[in-house]
């Protein structure tokens, strides 16, 4: 990477973009509600591109209008093609590369509403699919040598929510991808949808379809946000949702964090900026392959009484309707500048040795409630692990846990027999598992692995009581009584497990069992689900503390503890390891200013802000990092 010396310090010509971490933004065809479909990119975009270039964006997403391109069957509008060419030329002139999206619905520009389709479904109708192939090949062929194109994208979230089965989606995706590949073998092809949000929205599991492409996407949609974390965006669960979703969508492909930004105008511009900052840094700290911002300009909504604030206005950009930059854009600019100095070829994120297991039951549809409860429980488990400063990721039930040392199984109703076998073998060979009871009958393997006899479900409780039976065995726990609705409580007894904590009546709450080479920890209450289903923004601190203490303690004992520790649970840490020196990203998930004390395994000689400036001598294992509200810092550490 140019611009950095051998020691990694910034030199005069500091890089302005990180080629391994592109940042882009969606440029929608219409910016005003009063505009017509025919106004598709029919405006001067020079100022927009210039502003994007000035902020050092790498990517811009543009959308093809089928309606405009093919007004009559088989008759293509050359002017539309020219207009797209002008857009791409504008991007190229400003050193931007484009993601060209074919079948997108922005609920305004009517891009897929070809009048001759006669209400047939473009996802399933054979004739329309043939027309789609024709359109895609025509556009790709026209621009196949255009260096401005970074990737071809088949559709967007709104389009894909129309699919009703996996088979249909896979068939459509394969057909369209093959059509592009016939014409262009060089550029990447992206499906354009995140698996986790799509399954929530439609029940369609797109994971296999996505695996056939070159990039995966992760997009926090408005319905998904309201389902998972409907509260404030500047603290609590919402600040972890972007990275959780990124991890959820991460399988074998690099994942672009898509649609970063707020959905509504409820917050102040400062709140928007704080949320954008959190999402941006979360992405780079959690193995994101890049970021696409939700929208460049705010949509200018029509002022018609009494509903002048209509849903379209919720399309919020990083600049105002007049192009005036918002504080969020300044955050993006700062982020790009910072991340440009992070040499991702030289520094690699510390490997995650802990994982939250997402149960297969998560894909069950109603009347099973597991599909509704489990993602929320997993998010709370993920947050607890983050608050314990563990490098953590998500693992789907059935995936190979090889490489992990600690698994968290949060409040699952049931696991498959294969999963129980996998857990048994994982623990026996030295891994650690923390499993919380999720209701219903327990599998016989519970006794074998966790060393407890399941005696039944005591049912609903309103108070979580904790009394310590074995101090210090699973971290520094303390007794408490806290108001929290528990949907279940497992009554357990006997067995070989050691009771670490009980409820107020002496019934085990927390047990640990040595099984083979590893440890199996059982929580008798579905604490993750209870936090998720009550009020995660006001969850009792003792309960959250219990969870993160147990998670942290078990992971430490298993050798998968924090690589850099911190005294503040709301501060997230990610360490990029280099040869001889490291880069540490620090992110506050709270709106209060604070100073986080970081503790490393080795004595730190000096700390330097990655953006430049003078190195601060430390000569200690611990040092403080001042953070503003939702603040982030990226620091290079050298060791003595």
């Amino acid at each position, binding site marked *: 990477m140019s611009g950095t010396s051998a020691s990694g310090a910034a030199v005069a010509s500091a890089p302005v973009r990180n080629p391994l971490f592109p940042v882009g933004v969606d440029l929608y065809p219409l910016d005003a509600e009063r505009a017509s479909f025919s106004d598709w990119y029919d405006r001067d975009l020079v100022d927009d591109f210039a502003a994007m270039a000035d902020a050092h964006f790498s990517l811009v997403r543009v959308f093809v209008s089928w309606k405009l391109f093919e007004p009559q069957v088989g008759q293509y509008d050359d002017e539309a093609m020219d207009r797209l060419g002008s857009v791409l030329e504008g991007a190229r002139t400003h050193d931007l590369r484009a993601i060209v999206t074919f079948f997108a619905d922005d609920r305004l520009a009517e891009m897929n509403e070809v009048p001759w389709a006669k209400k047939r479904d473009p996802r399933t109708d054979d004739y329309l699919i043939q027309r789609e192939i024709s359109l895609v090949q025509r556009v790709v062929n026209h621009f196949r040598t255009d260096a401005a194109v970074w990737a071809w994208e088949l559709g967007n979230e709104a389009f894909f929510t129309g699919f009703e089965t996996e088979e249909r989606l896979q068939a459509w995706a394969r057909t369209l991808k093959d059509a592009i590949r016939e014409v262009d073998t060089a550029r990447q092809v992206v499906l354009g949808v995140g698996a986790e949000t799509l399954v929530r929205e439609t029940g369609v599991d797109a994971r296999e379809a996505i695996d056939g492409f070159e990039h995966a996407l992760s997009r926090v949609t*408005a*319905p998904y946000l*309201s*389902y998972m974390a*409907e*509260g*404030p*965006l*500047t603290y609590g669960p919402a600040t972890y949702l972007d990275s959780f979703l990124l991890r959820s969508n991460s399988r074998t492909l690099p994942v672009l964090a898509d649609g970063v930004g707020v*959905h*509504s105008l*409820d*917050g*102040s511009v*400062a*709140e928007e900026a704080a949320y954008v900052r959190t999402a941006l840094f979360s992405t780079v700290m959690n193995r994101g392959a890049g970021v696409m911002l939700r929208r460049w300009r705010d949509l200018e909504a029509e002022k018609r009484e*009494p*509903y002048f*604030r*209509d*849903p379209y206005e*919720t399309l919020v950009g990083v600049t105002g309707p007049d192009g005036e930059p918002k504080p969020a854009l300044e955050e993006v600019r700062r982020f790009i500048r910072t991340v440009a100095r992070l040499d991702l070829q030289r520094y690699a994120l510390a490997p995650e040795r802990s994982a939250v297991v997402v149960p297969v039951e998560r894909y069950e549809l*109603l*009347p099973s*409630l597991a599909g*509704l*409860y489990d993602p929320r429980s997993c998010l709370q488990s993920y947050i607890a692990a983050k608050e314990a400063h563990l490098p953590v990721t998500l693992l789907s039930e059935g995936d190979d846990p090889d490489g992990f040392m600690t698994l968290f199984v949060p409040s699952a109703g049931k696991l498959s027999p294969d999963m129980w076998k996998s857990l048994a073998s994982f623990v026996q060979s030295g891994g650690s598992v923390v499993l919380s009871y999720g*209701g219903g009958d327990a599998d016989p393997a519970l006794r074998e692995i966790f060393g407890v006899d399941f005696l039944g479900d005591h049912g*609903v409780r309103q108070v979580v009581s904790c009394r310590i039976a074995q101090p210090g065995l699973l971290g520094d726990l303390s007794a408490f009584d806290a*108001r929290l609705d528990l*949907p279940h409580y497992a009554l357990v007894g006997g067995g070989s497990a050691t009771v670490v904590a009980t409820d107020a009546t002496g019934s085990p709450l927390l047990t640990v069992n040595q099984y083979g080479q590893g440890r199996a920890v059982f929580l008798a209450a579905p604490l993750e689900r209870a936090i998720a*289903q*009550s*009020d995660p*923004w*006001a969850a*009792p*601190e003792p309960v959250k503390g219990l969870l993160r203490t147990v998670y942290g303690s078990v992971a430490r004992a298993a050798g998968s503890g924090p690589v850099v520790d911190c005294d503040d649970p709301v501060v997230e840490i990610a360490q990029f390891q280099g040869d001889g020196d490291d880069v540490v990203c620090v992110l506050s998930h709270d709106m209060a200013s604070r100073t986080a004390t970081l503790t490393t395994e080795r004595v730190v000689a000096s700390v330097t802000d990655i953006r430049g400036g003078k190195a601060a001598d430390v000569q200690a294992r611990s040092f403080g990092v001042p953070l503003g509200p939702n603040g982030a810092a990226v620091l290079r550490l050298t060791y003595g």
Partner: protein
Amino acid sequence: MAGRPGAAEQAETLARQGQVGAAVAACYEALAIDHGQPRIHALLAHLMLEGDFYDEAIAEATAAIEADPDCSPAYLALGLAYDRRGGMWDQSLLVWHELAEVAPDLVTAHVQLGEAFSAAAFEEEAVESWRRALELDPKESRATYNLAIDSLKREGMALALPLFRQAGELDPSQDELFFALLGLKDAPVVQVDPARVKPNRDARVGAAGLALKADDFFAAADLVRLVLDEQPDDAEALALAAYAYLKQEAANEAMACAVRALSLQPDLVTALYCLGVVYARRTGLSRHAARVFIALAKQAPSHALVHVLLAESLLGLQRYEQAGKAYRLAVRLDPACVRARFGLAAAYLTEGRYAEASWEIRRAAYYDTKRQGLFWRLYDGYVGGGDGQ
């Protein structure tokens, strides 16, 4: 075709017992027999709402309304789902309008309609709705809180404070705090006959507390008088007297008794409570109230309402940041405390944190409607009206 009666009734029974999973399964069983039962769709909407699964709640409530446009419990579930989901205020407005027509005496419909108007920045219409709610029920505290928030936005804290105080006085849980401090939180409300109380000090003080809980001030006064006749310096009895005076709007007497009790036992929580409340009700005594409530918060830190009372006095002193901290602590102790949620919203508004203020108001509405058990009232009325199939 009417569904098998057993399936629908079983679903209802399970839903009332809070067995969400089993109730949902029973609802699906009932719908498998007859898909068009609005009451079952409404029930499912309610169950989904209980789990905060808003999109599912909206789908089920919509199905219920499509099957029967007069299905009032479905309107309630639909409106609440729109409001809690956020960003769907326009749909929410229409639903609350409809519900106000279907159930014109339902105070909550007007309160919610006001909140939907407010979210849509139609402040005048919002105020009209809340006033309409107060016409129907002058003791509707959420409408009063909303008016206080509106006043805060328009005119500032000085003019909003009296409304916050007024709403606080409508809060029945404040009395519950006194009895919790007295150790009678779980005691039943029973009539006390002073003649049958054992003639010793402890029995009389205990019985006086029970009499106060039953709003029997004469019996309480008799018992307290007997205690004080024997021992005029009994701080606990003086605190009971202070509370009795407080409840009868005799502020000076209440203050005198509480001050005397505290001079005898400075950490007596019941006396601290009475003195703090007396000061809080008097204009210009916020500083005194805050000092007393700080002492009370030290003595009884686990009671959410103690922190609310402290926060309200701090609002009066324009110490918004500290008030916000006290409110946040109260919310942590009791997330369902509507009074703390509205207060916190007010504190956030003074700091320009609008999104968080709006969230707190939404959570207040969430807990308030949950506490009222409105769905079951409407549901029983709907099913009992014979049009539930």
